[in-house]
């Protein structure tokens, strides 16, 4: 049913993503799909990396690690954004198009009152992506 699963990850907050990560891995096993881990970074030095290239390396290493642990084929894609906190959704949409993924699995929080005016990243991605989006809460 699905051939390529895109999984947005925030390398700084992996502990919050566990449920979504294992969910994605199980789905990939079921459908014999490939997982693409997607990240968004800035051109500026950040907590995780000094340069976009260093960030891409880290993400690639993460994907390989996941692949070794689960036996699923994994790769990675990263986008550079000027203003990550705002543009992250658009950057992820771009990754969806670039990779030709057919499913997005991502972690999100339980919607609260704020989400009516200020939707979560997952919420916005689900509204704008042309492919299926699964939000793990």
């Amino acid at each position: 049913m699905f051939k390529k699963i895109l999984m947005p990850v925030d390398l700084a907050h992996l502990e919050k993503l566990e449920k979504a990560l294992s969910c994605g891995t199980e789905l990939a096993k079921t459908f014999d799909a490939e997982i693409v881990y997607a990240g968004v970074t800035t051109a500026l030095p950040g907590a995780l990396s000094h340069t976009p290239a260093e960030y891409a390396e880290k993400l690639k290493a993460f994907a390989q690690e996941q692949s070794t642990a689960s036996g699923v084929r994994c790769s990675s894609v990263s986008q550079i954004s000027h203003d990550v906190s705002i543009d992250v959704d658009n950057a992820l949409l771009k990754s969806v198009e670039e990779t030709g993924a057919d499913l997005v699995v991502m972690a999100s929080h339980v919607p609260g009152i704020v989400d009516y005016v200020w939707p979560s990243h997952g919420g916005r991605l689900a509204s704008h992506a042309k492919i299926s989006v699964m939000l793990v809460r």
Partner: protein
Amino acid sequence: MTDENADQGIPAPEGAADIIDTDYEIGQDNIDGQVGPFGFDIHNPVFLVSGLAIVAFVFYTLALPEQAGSGFTWLFSTVTTSFDWFFLGAADFFVIFCLLLIVSPLGKVRLGGADATPDYSYIGWFAMLFAAGMGIGLMFYGVSEPMSHFSSSFGGIASEGGVRTDWAPLGGAEGDAEAATRLGMAATIFHWGLHPWAIYAIVALALALFSYNKGLPLTIRSAFYPILGDRVWGWPGHLIDILAVFATLFGLATSLGFGATQANAGLNELFGVPINDTVEVLLISGITAIALVSVLRGLDGGVKILSEINMGLAFLLLVFVLIAGPTMLILTGFVDYLVAYVQYLPGLANPIGRDDVNFSQGWTAFYWAWWISWSPFVGMFIARVSRGRSVREFIICVLLIPSLVCVLWMSVFGGVAIDQVVSEGYTAAQEADLPIQLFKMLDALPLAGITSLIGIVLVIVFFVTSSDSGSLVIDTITAGGKVDAPVPQRVFWCIFEGAVAIVLLLSAGGLSSLQSMVISTGLPFTIVLLIMCFAIWKGLRSEMKA
């Protein structure tokens, strides 16, 4: 960091990127968590100290307005009279330093590494740095400053007990309209040309270099790494960043105050809206709300679009005034004023032994302090959008082109207004209060209703872009250089800037309280800037070896 590095300040180059090797991790001193539905990620103690100090300051000003007001007046006169030579000398040094960088081989270094490509097109880049750098000031002073200098020069020298009491620049030009125009325009160009942009260029270059090329966080303290080493991550660095937050906040609040008074004056002129505190508070609140929307749309969707709209509108207004006014006179004036600027520059820039004390202290020293207090804000903003430019390209673009545009702007707006006085005897603009002079000048031209409306829109949009980019910058500094901190923090600063502008405007001194705070934060920051020049030089030299 190894011992060898400590000796050299900046470690030996490591490959093409020449990243500084430090154990510090961006965000290591940050605290993050959740307040209600909003997440936060802030630098401890920079956020807490600057936040609390500013809240305390606001309450003090509100609780004891009289005492605070007289304190502000004292501060203003003390700093401008005792340290005028320091401001003037430092600013001259910054210009010379920048010009030297353009011609030296160090100009070849590319920000972001040798293979970096620019993130923004020239137009988008230029629009943003211009809107951030001067915006409201150009609207506020475009007519009123040339007019003030023209009038004071024309009035000539007056002195009392050997001390000059007039406000004329240099020796003035008593009774000579043509000489007074040239001197007035030269003095204005002096305040808006090379000097302010050199100040901005230094901060922006230091930030861009140490962030893009050396891998340090995007905060002011990073530029001090070559001097302080790993101590910049401790209290010396905290103090530098806190100072930057203060300077930025008060610098912004001053401009917002100017913007609000001028928008109010314009609305009064057009629609008869009364000029009072209530309207100004409503204006600041309303415009801050618009700025919030822009904040939520991000750098590319908010500030960039607004800046481009503003550039377009400002250009339209400029062309209109140029055509509707005495076109040939302005165009010949543009060249003539540039010549006058070069001619008077040595005298105007001279830091010592001046007898035109009112002018050099009240105007020049205040301006330099104002630009310097804006420099962390504008500098960081310019740095954030300048990746991929070479140092030479960067300085030429940040120093020369905006200067020329300012000269053009002042020649057109000031030139028309002065011409109205000299050849037509129309003195409405000359006699009006500062915020209203622009609208009085437009009044004498055709389609005044439309152009005044454009003027008000420009003030408001400049206000929005300043408030938006200011929030972005303060947020970055108070988040320890993190550029992907949660958005609610930016919202917090955006609201806070509006609030500071409101309470200071309502305080006893009004706009002058704002100005006193600006120059008192500008003074220590001048020292910061001087040290930065040394750091830039060291940093660029190590890039050359990479």
